[in-house]
């Protein structure tokens, strides 16, 4: 599936909020672009590079260094499994395996119909709730593989309606 075209106007409006030529703004710019576009398409990064006055290779190197930036389109829904230590000892790896099995994708991937992206995160600091799954921004604590399976199943059903 090819990525949808990027609305350059939206990109430029985000860039306009940041001073031109200031390299220190780079990471904030990437965050804001991603908040606007859900991911960081190439055209947006190219424009950001010229706005900030940094080489494209530099920007690409930075964007791929940090885990928080996504250079591929992401699904409509995001399922994030916390892999922090507290969640790990309480069984987070089993949650990832369950989700991978149910969705037929690996963590970090998006379903072919672009409905859901499965991600992991290294601790969101809600350790008392572990194991924790964040589904579209909502925290689900004390998760079990069985419950996660049903959560994902519900989404699949909604999709087919």
């Amino acid at each position: 599936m090819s990525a949808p075209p990027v609305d350059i106007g939206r990109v430029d409006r985000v860039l306009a909020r940041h001073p031109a030529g200031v390299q220190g703004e780079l990471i904030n710019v990437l965050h804001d672009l991603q908040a606007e576009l859900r991911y960081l398409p190439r055209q947006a990064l190219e424009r950001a590079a010229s706005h900030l006055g940094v080489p494209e290779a530099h920007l690409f190197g930075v964007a791929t260094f940090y885990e928080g930036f996504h250079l591929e389109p992401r699904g409509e829904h995001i399922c994030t499994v916390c892999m922090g230590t507290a969640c790990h000892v309480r069984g987070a790896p089993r949650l990832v395996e369950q989700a991978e099995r149910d969705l037929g994708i690996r963590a970090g991937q998006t379903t072919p119909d672009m409905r859901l992206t499965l991600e992991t995160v290294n601790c969101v600091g809600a350790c008392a709730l572990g194991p924790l799954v964040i589904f579209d921004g909502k925290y689900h604590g004390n998760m079990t593989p069985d419950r996660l399976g049903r959560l994902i199943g519900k989404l699949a059903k909604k999709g087919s309606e």
Partner: protein
Amino acid sequence: MARIGNAKQLAEYRKQVKASKPESRKAIAVCAGTGCKAFGSFELFEAFREALARHELDRQWDLRATGCHGFCERGPLVLFFPDGMLYQRVKSSDVDEIVQTTLKQGKVVDRLLYTDPQSGDAYIKERDIPFYKHQRRLVLEQNGQIDPCSIDDYIALGGYSALAKALAMGPHRVLDEVERAHLRGRGGAGFPAGRKWKTCRGTESDKRYIICNADEGDPGAFMDRSVLEGNPHSVLEGMIIGAFAIGADEGWVYVRQEYPLAIERLELALEAARAKGLLGEDILGSGFAFDVHINRGGGAFVCGEESALIASLEGRRGVPRRRPPYPAVAGLHGKPTNINNVETWANVPLIVGKGADWFRSIGTEGSKGTKIFSLVGKVNNTGLVEVPMGMPLRQIVEDIGGGIPGGKRFKAVQTGGPSGGCLPADKLDVAVDFDSLTAEGSMMGSGGMIVMDEDTCMVDVARYFVGFLKFESCGNCTSCRDGLERMHELLTDITEGRGTDETIALLEDLAATVKATSLCALGTTAVNPVQSTLKYFRDEYEAHVRDKRCPARVCKALISYTIDNDACTGCTLCAKRCPQDAISGQKKGPHTIDQDKCIKCGICRDVCTYDAVRVE
């Protein structure tokens, strides 16, 4: 919102704010920390607001959505002032009863009280609950009392008086005070903050920066998150005092993007402080100017390392560089830069306000003050705890943490985040301070404390941490990048039954090189989990390689699931839920697992209500 022009006006303003609160000082504090929010505390807060309005109690009771109270295990938490009664696991549907019984009649709703699962004792007041009783909450004290979005709440409790005091003292006396307090950085290394500040101040420059490191990356640690979310002004006040002492006019908070609430609260705090004249030009009429910007982290654990953090702030890949020169001499944009973490900054107003002597009276010879830990994992009372330095580990785990759930046996506690070490039961009497933990092969780190029980496999834990760190390594040094990847491979071999004694020997050899030859602390401490588990739990490694057995029954390749015929009632639930259709059997007859099909996901064991699924 008028600017506060000087210290005297600040004191007057504090009086005004206090006068505007209910005279009875009655308040309901609903915890709005991340944990409680996930348990529905936002809805609960709205229910309280609606109920108070409906019963016309909103003038008598001051309703606040506060920061994290710490006892996350029991959320949502509701604390009543002034008497300090705590209700736990409160639901919106409880609100009407609380209003009728507690607010109107002054009676206790017993079922909402915390009841100790072991002794069966119920506690009315927060401070009597064992979880809180052994703590000494200084930095976290106000977390449960104030609305973090209200600068007035903070000022009412004495906020920004330390700043006023510092401005009157002058920079050099503030520096001396902080040095004399022997405040050590709470971010991990424990470097004396006062010395760092003086170095920064002492470096000739036209410009100096200060940075608040809020890139709390340790998995299993969330104290900085809670302080920022619950009491952002305390961090901000610390930074302003620090900037004044150091002679900086610009500051940054480098905060994790994964903490959106903390960012939001911090932004509000900055705005409010600017409007009040506590931040920006001519702070409290002193002529001192200082402002703070927020930079969201990109998601890289290594950026907790100060030179990597600076690289990130400059819009570069977060790769550490060799120090010296230290940032205090040449930091952000080459200028002298002082970096402290959230908890360190939050200690500053306490030190300046109450004095170095008071601060030095808490803690041990080498480690002064308190430390916040996130006590998580296999422990009954998970949450944030703040204790004086030097408290024995046992007291934290057993008295505050309430021991291990489900009657399981304690196995280890991991301190110091991914680079810390795992300490076994016979090290539980170690005093928790910077030097004692390091002496035992672990470290204080930023304060993660993860409890593990008999069901935790120490080889798996070591593999988990090394896996985390190889992913989080910046990838610069051969030893760290390739060494950790290879250590992870070796650990995987062990957990999957391919290991031999030579695997362990090579693992140890490699660990020594990674530790000795990596550039930054990520690499040099990355081997702690492996070295400490090899030191204290070698028998578990040996069981994996010699007997091909995982004593904790965690490592999938070394375990198998079976169904106990005597216990199985033939309810068929496991067979229905098995994702591989590996379970067969007649209804009401015993079931069996086809070992060739079984992927050891453990769902059958989770769903079995008769405890008939065994793991060997």
